[in-house]
């Protein structure tokens, strides 16, 4: 079920009413309702893959229980590896099987050996990368004795499958989300209103910003061979806003929805395009995944504690794995590696924690230096997104080489160019909203402290009208595929 669908618009109030009225003050029943609703939410897409989530839930629940009873370190390690093998096994099969097979065959062919292997027609279960990482975090934390394993299977099922964040995050830590299933939840008016506002803003980002940018980005990327460098830059810019609107929009809707049920999910985006360096960008982009890799991969590998080569190795590993997490394609790996290249100089010079505050923290406008830093970081990010969006390395390199040619100085010309230019003012308004809201959790957060009621309602209804206007076709969220 998509958040931007009428199905969800009916599903959410039904679950909400059952949750707060029928099962009010009945914690177990509320958790069971969340679990059932989450399975309906997921099964709406394809019920067959519910068995995967259920199996993953059973495995990690059981292993959690076994880890509690077991003191033998070797056995504990074996249990942990069983959990990791099951979760990564699912992920590996559904997501990476064909990639490895094809590359294996290519490698043999390169050395003159011809081997046969049949690619499988595998459907990638929606959100598999998200819920497998979430369940793994539980088992790893239990193994590390940071978390007491749960004895409440219903709560654990609800935690693994919690519908607001099941298919595209934020990837929650068991230490943050699971305890919330043990506590009685009271309806909180302010939290619910803030949640509704965040849902509204998330829908705007997805339906208005991302879906429109997608149209122009697709036109340009799909006909990139015939277009000039200037048109390709515009295509890359549209994709830059598409992916941000799409993914952060999903996160906003997820966090807002969770708030309606009395849950607090972790922040996933913190206005990343206003970052002053790449290190700051990665502290603000897909925070739940970056911190996951930091805690469960980077730090265990030694983090930045070791020598020069260790730092370089670990940085590349974490960025490349992050790229590979996004998809089984060399383009994602290169995207990750490129970000590692951007990040390394900052790390090696100890400048990676220079910008921990918000840009122009105490003022309305940034300084000239900050403008330069933000634009440079943004430019580097846009360049990296080309690899992320391209169909293949050849495609990406073709685009990049055209951008760095003289055709970049020509007037952009692509299909629906005029429509794209008409859309740009809306994009500027969006960026301004994001800028003025950059100190908050999301752009419309705490708006009641900034604007008077008539202006607020004018903003809300304008957003609502633009959502309805642009809600022609329901578009999938990009991150569903990851």
């Amino acid at each position, binding site marked *: 079920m998509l958040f931007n669908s009428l199905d969800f618009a009916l599903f959410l109030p039904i679950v909400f009413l059952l949750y707060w009225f029928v099962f009010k003050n009945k914690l177990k029943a509320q958790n069971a309702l969340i679990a059932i609703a989450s399975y309906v939410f997921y099964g709406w897409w394809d019920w067959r893959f519910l068995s995967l989530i259920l199996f993953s839930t059973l495995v990690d629940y059981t292993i959690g229980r076994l880890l509690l009873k077991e003191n033998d370190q070797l056995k504990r390690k074996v249990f942990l590896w069983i959990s990791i093998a099951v979760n990564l096994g699912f992920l590996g099969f559904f997501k990476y099987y064909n990639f490895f097979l094809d590359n294996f065959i290519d490698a043999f062919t390169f050395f003159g050996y011809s081997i046969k292997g049949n690619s499988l027609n595998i459907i990638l279960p929606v959100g598999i990368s998200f819920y497998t990482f979430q369940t793994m975090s539980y088992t790893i934390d239990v193994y590390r004795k940071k978390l007491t394993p749960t004895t409440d299977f219903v709560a654990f099922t609800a935690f693994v499958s919690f519908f607001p964040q099941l298919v595209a995050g934020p990837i929650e830590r068991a230490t943050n989300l699971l305890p919330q299933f043990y506590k009685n939840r009271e309806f909180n008016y302010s939290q619910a209103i803030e949640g509704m506002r965040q849902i509204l803003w998330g829908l705007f980002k997805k339906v208005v910003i991302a879906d429109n940018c997608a149209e122009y980005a697709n036109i340009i990327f799909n006909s990139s061979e015939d277009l000039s460098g200037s048109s390709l830059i515009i295509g890359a810019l549209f994709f830059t806003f598409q992916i941000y609107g799409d993914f952060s929009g999903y996160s906003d809707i997820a966090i807002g929805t969770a708030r309606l049920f009395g849950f607090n999910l972790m922040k996933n985006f913190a206005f990343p395009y206003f970052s002053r360096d790449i290190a700051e960008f990665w502290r603000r982009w897909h925070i739940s995944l970056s911190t996951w890799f930091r805690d469960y991969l980077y730090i265990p590998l030694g983090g930045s504690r070791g020598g020069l080569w260790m730092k370089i190795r670990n940085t590349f590993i974490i960025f490349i794995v992050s790229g590979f997490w996004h998809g089984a394609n060399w383009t994602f790996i290169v995207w990750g590696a490129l970000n590692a290249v951007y990040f390394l100089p900052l790390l090696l010079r100890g400048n990676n924690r220079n910008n921990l505050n918000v840009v122009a923290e105490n003022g309305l406008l940034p300084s000239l230096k900050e403008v330069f830093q933000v634009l440079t970081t943004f430019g580097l990010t846009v360049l990296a997104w080309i690899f992320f969006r391209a169909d293949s390395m050849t495609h990406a390199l073709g685009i990049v080489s055209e951008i760095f040619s003289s055709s970049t100085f020509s007037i952009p010309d692509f299909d629906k160019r005029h429509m794209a230019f008409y859309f740009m003012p809306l994009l500027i308004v969006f960026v301004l909203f994001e800028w003025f809201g950059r100190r908050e959790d999301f752009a419309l957060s705490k708006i009641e402290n900034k604007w008077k009621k008539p202006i607020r309602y004018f903003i809300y209804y304008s957003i*609502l009208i633009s959502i309805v206007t642009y809600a022609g076709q329901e578009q999938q969220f990009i991150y569903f595929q990851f």
Partner: protein
Amino acid sequence: MKRFFKKLGWFALPCFAIVALVICLDFFKVFSDYEEYYSDDLFVSLNREYICFKNLEKQAKLNKPDSFVFGSSRSQAFKCKDWQGYLTPLNRSFHFDAGNEAIVGVLYKLKYLDRNDFKINNVLLVLDVGLLNQTSLKHRNYSLNISHPEISDNSYYDFYKPFITASLNPKFVFSYFDFRTFGKHRKYMGQYIANTKYPMIMDESNMEIYYGKDLEIENDSIEFYKRTIKTGIFYDRSEKQYDSTEVNPEMVNQFQQIKSFFEKYKTSYKFVVSPMYDQIELNKKYLSQLIKIFGKDNVFDYSGENQFTNSLGNFYEISHYRPHVARQILKEIYNN
């Protein structure tokens, strides 16, 4: 909680009022039944399949049709009046088409006719290369083409959803009331509002449609084609394009189900692959599969480069060919 609902209610009130209003206004004529759908003052596009279905319901009580023309909007070039000449006088023909029709849509219609005790004595099935690979109706999930639950496996909710969304589009609503008030088509209205001094004529008893463009061409064909060419619609076809339609088991299964209906009703049927401006020829493998199932005497492929696709004068624009082409095709397929 009470405060939350009160606030939500007040906030949503204008939205609910607007939804109720658009249902009452019923721009697309789907929320109520009408005596006549294509009235003289109609200036918005309706869902063709839905209107066909509603009129077929009416005709079932009056003069039950037993011969059907199926297909996409391109099939509208085939007139029941012309086709009747190849049927017996007792046959009653009806044009039961849908925008962007696919093979599965035809199958749904046959199932509907079967469920509702229609006889299916004759069928003329007109499909296009691009739509022969569609085995679901997902590509038709917007207001103009969405299929009614009585025909397809869509729910009522699936069906009404795009109409409500389309009716809430401010640009459409503004265009609608502007045109209704001032009767003048303005540039911003675009495709939302019909803009022609040659309106189409509809015979709702058999869903025969006569485009105003034919009258326009008749009055001044040179001016019509000069204007159309100027818009760049008739693009250069020197670069040959190929059809990528592949046969898959689901398609074959759907064809076989269609065939079983034909066998059940001892239907006399003809399958026409439309002549299209793009001159993309139907994949040979696909064609042989069609012939294998329906027989070579019943399948007629007019795709690719041929006498019908060569001349601009056979088309209104690149997607729709004219009735004289259909008449010629009928002559060829029935006299063979």
